[in-house]
C-alpha cells in the first residue's frame, strides 16, 4: 500500500462513519477522494476494513456475557447493606468473631452435626417443576451422601436442634443468650424467587417440630466440608462480616442447593444469605442475598 501523500485515517474514518455529514469537512474529503488516488485507494480499503471490523466485533458475542453469580451476589449484598443502613436497622457492631467463638465449642460439645430432613417437595409443592427436576438431577449425589449424614447424626435419624431450646444433644443457650443455629439439610433446591419465603418456612416448620425426623436428602457432597463445626463457623463469620452484621444471630443453616448448585443457605434475622461450597475459605463465596419476607 503506497500513497503519494498522507491520508488522515481519523478524518477518513469520520467521513465513512457519517460523523462529517452536513459539514464542510465532508465536502472537502469527498474532493480528496475524487481527486487524489491515495485518498481514493484509502477510502476503498478503509471502508472494507471497517466493515470487517464490525464482523469481528460480532464474534465477541456480547449476548454471551452473563454476569457471574458471585458478582451478582456481591452487588446484591452491597445493595442490601446500604438498604439496611438507610433504614437504620444496622445492629451495633460487636467484636467481629464473637459469635464464632461461641458456635465452635457449642457445636463441638454436641459431638455431632445434627441434621434434619423436612421433605422439600412436601413443604413446597409450588416450588415448581424445574426445581423438582433439578433435585432429581442432583439426587444421586444427595443419596450418596445420606449414609455419611446419617453417621453425623449418630443413628441415621435426623433430629433437629432448635435455637434456644435445650435438647438431649446438649445444645443450650449460652450465657449471653446467643445460641447455636439449627443446621439442616433439607435437600431443597432454592431459587432466588422463593428463597426468602421458603427459608422462613423451613425455620417455622423446624421450630414447630423440633423432633421431626422425616426423609433426609442429605448433604450435597461439595458441602461436606461444612459439616465440620470449625469450617461452618468460618463460613458463617465470613457471611456476617460481609453483611456488616458481625454480631447478628444466625437463625438457620440449610446445607442445600441454590439454582441447582450446592449452597449454604443461611437465615439471618432479616436477610437470607446464600453461599457456595467455598464459603469460609477466602470469604463468604456469596451466591445471592436478599431480605427475608416480612422483615
Amino acid at each position: 500500500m503506497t500513497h503519494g501523500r498522507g491520508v488522515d485515517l481519523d478524518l477518513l474514518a469520520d467521513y465513512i462513519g457519517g460523523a462529517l455529514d452536513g459539514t464542510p469537512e465532508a465536502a472537502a474529503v469527498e474532493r480528496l477522494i475524487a481527486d487524489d488516488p491515495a485518498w481514493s485507494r484509502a477510502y476503498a480499503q478503509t471502508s472494507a476494513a471497517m466493515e470487517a471490523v464490525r464482523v469481528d466485533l460480532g464474534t465477541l458475542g456480547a449476548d454471551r456475557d452473563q454476569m457471574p453469580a458471585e458478582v451478582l451476589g456481591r452487588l446484591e449484598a452491597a445493595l442490601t447493606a446500604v438498604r439496611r443502613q438507610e433504614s437504620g436497622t444496622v445492629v451495633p457492631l460487636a467484636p467481629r468473631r464473637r459469635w464464632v467463638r461461641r458456635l465452635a465449642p457449642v457445636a463441638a460439645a454436641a459431638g455431632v452435626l445434627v441434621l434434619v430432613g423436612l421433605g422439600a417437595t412436601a413443604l413446597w409443592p409450588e416450588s415448581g417443576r424445574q426445581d423438582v427436576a433439578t433435585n432429581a438431577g442432583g439426587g444421586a449425589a444427595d443419596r450418596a451422601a445420606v449414609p455419611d449424614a446419617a453417621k453425623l447424626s449418630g443413628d441415621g435419624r435426623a433430629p433437629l436442634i432448635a435455637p434456644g431450646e435445650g435438647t438431649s444433644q446438649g445444645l443450650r443457650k449460652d450465657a449471653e443468650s446467643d445460641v447455636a443455629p439449627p443446621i439442616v439439610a433439607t435437600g431443597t433446591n432454592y431459587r432466588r424467587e422463593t428463597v426468602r419465603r421458603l427459608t422462613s418456612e423451613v425455620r417455622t416448620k423446624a421450630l414447630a417440630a423440633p423432633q421431626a425426623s422425616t426423609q433426609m436428602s442429605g448433604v450435597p457432597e461439595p458441602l461436606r466440608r461444612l459439616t465440620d463445626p470449625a469450617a461452618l463457623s468460618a463460613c458463617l463469620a465470613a457471611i456476617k462480616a460481609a453483611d456488616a452484621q458481625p454480631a447478628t444471630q444466625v437463625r438457620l443453616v440449610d446445607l442445600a442447593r441454590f439454582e441447582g448448585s450446592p449452597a449454604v443457605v443461611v437465615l439471618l434475622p432479616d436477610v437470607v444469605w446464600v453461599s457456595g461450597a467455598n464459603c469460609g475459605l477466602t470469604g463468604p463465596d456469596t451466591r445471592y442475598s436478599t431480605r427475608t419476607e416480612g422483615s
Partner: protein
Amino acid sequence: MSDRPASDEELLRAHVAGEPEAFAELLRRHRDRLWSVALRTLGDREEAADALQDALLSAHRAAGRFRGDSAVTTWLHRIVVNACLDRVRRRQSHPTVPLPDGTRHFDQDSAGGAGPEPAAPPVDHDTALVVRQALAQLPAEQRAALVLVDLQGYSVAEVAEILGVAEGTVKSRCARGRARLAVLLGHLRPDPGDAAYGNPSTGGNVTSQSARATQEGGR
C-alpha cells in the same frame, strides 16, 4: 392485567418509595447487559465488578433524582459507563492492558491477591480473543462507544444520550475506533513508509492528526 410485570420506571419509583426489593429486581433484570458493558469497557472482571458496584450504589442513592427524561436503562447505562470511564481515567497514569489469557499487569500497589482471571467467559475461537485484545488498546471513550453501539446494539442516538455527547461525537468515536481496530486486526495494512497509516499505538501521523482532529468539542 395486574400480572403485568412492573416496568423499569415503576420499579425505580417503588424503590424510591421504599420497596426494599425493587432496585434489586431492576439489577437482576438488566444485570447481563450492564455487566457486558462494564466488562468490555474495562476488559477486566475485577475492575468491572468494582465499577458496577460503584455505579449501582450511586444509582441506588440517586434514584430519587431520576426525572424520566430518558429510559431507566439509558440512565443506568450512563451511570455504569461513567463509572467505568472514571476508573480508566484514574488508572491512566499506570495503564494496565489485559493479556491474552486475561491476566493483567498489576501495578505495584495492586499486585496483591488477584491471580489470573479470564477477562470474559471463554469463547470457542481465537478471533474473539484477538478482537478483545485489540479493543482493549483503544482509547476508553472510543471503546465505550463501540461497546454500546457495535456490541450492545444501541442506536447512535441512545448512545449519545448515555454518554452525554452529541450524536456526531458518537459516530466519530465509533468510526475512529473501528479504523484503529482495522489496523490492529490487520484488515488495514499500512505501507511501512507511510506514517500517515501508522498503527495508532506507534504514534504515527494518525495519532498526531487525531489529536488535532479530536478537538471536535461537542460535535
